[in-house]
């Protein structure tokens, strides 16, 4: 048993399941967006705004946003623990990643529900 405090979940299994679950959510969301763009060849800003004004779309987008944050953290954590051996550099890399993830999440929520 290897101890780790910087991974997302409490165990390897938790991270593994979250990574796969979020991958499915992101795939479905991306396919939907692609489908929407293909179905609207002359897409206008108003169509786009109308789509995101719908509560269901806001919930789906928030779900995708949280998914990308969790998925991104697990992936970047894996890269950091594989390739960055000096503890200081690894900590810095993870800190910057955490800052990016947090900013994306708050910014995304602000875009979705902000004025």
């Amino acid at each position: 048993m290897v101890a780790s405090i910087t991974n997302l979940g409490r165990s390897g299994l938790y991270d593994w399941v979250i990574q796969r679950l979020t991958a499915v959510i992101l795939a479905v969301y991306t396919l939907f967006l692609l489908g929407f763009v293909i179905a609207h060849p002359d897409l206008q800003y108003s169509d786009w705004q109308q789509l995101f004004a719908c509560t269901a779309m806001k919930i789906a987008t928030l779900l995708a946003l949280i998914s990308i944050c969790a998925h991104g953290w697990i992936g970047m954590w894996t890269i950091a623990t594989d390739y960055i051996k000096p503890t200081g550099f690894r900590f810095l890399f993870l800190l910057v990643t955490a800052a990016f993830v947090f900013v994306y999440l708050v910014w995304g929520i602000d875009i979705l529900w902000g004025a």
Partner: protein
Amino acid sequence: MLVSIYRYNPEKDEAPYMQDYQIDMPTGRDLMVLDVLALVKEQDSSVSYRRSCREGVCGSDGMNINGKNGLACVMPVSEATKGKNDKLILRPLPGMPVIRDLVIDMGLFYKQYENIKPYLNNDTPAPAIERLQSPEERAKLDGLYECILCACCSTACPSFWWNPEKFVGPAGLLQAYRFLADSRDTSTEERLANLDDPFSVFRCRGIMNCVNVCPKGLNPTRAIGHIRGMLLQRGV
């Protein structure tokens, strides 16, 4: 035939280098790579490598043969040099500390093997004669027990290269599943608890290098998948 061998003697050499040998191959028959090494050894007795059974049973002579890990004793020269201009390039198994020439330090590999407790645990009273298994229960060990711990798979695995002290590696995990799948073992819970961290099992990204190189034709990736399945069943 030209044979290029990785040479490194830490007592004399500042850095490793490749040394070429011209070997006269007998005509009319194929040699194994280990036979070629014996011919090299006749030319230069300082070349070091491990060998023992010379028939793919002991797992001593695992090495990197023309870019792919394998056992020198069961790898025909014709197969190793196919499409490589008849040149044989021999290097030690990658990612492990080199003791000398083709001999590597297997310490971390054995440490990971030790970590998975490669022996049967059974807390029920010992029977008078033996613990019986049905043919079906025994069949579950096929494809697992045959591993000879040559380290070809683990040293072909990038996850093991980057974290050999934390990731058990394909060879160790194949053996971990061999004991998880054994009907006579009663410590499944402890074994699974010991593996449920972000490194021991889950550092495997499923690239299947292990399957590609195993000289015994075993499938560690499938065994790792079974362990994940057992952990999932335990966790949900």
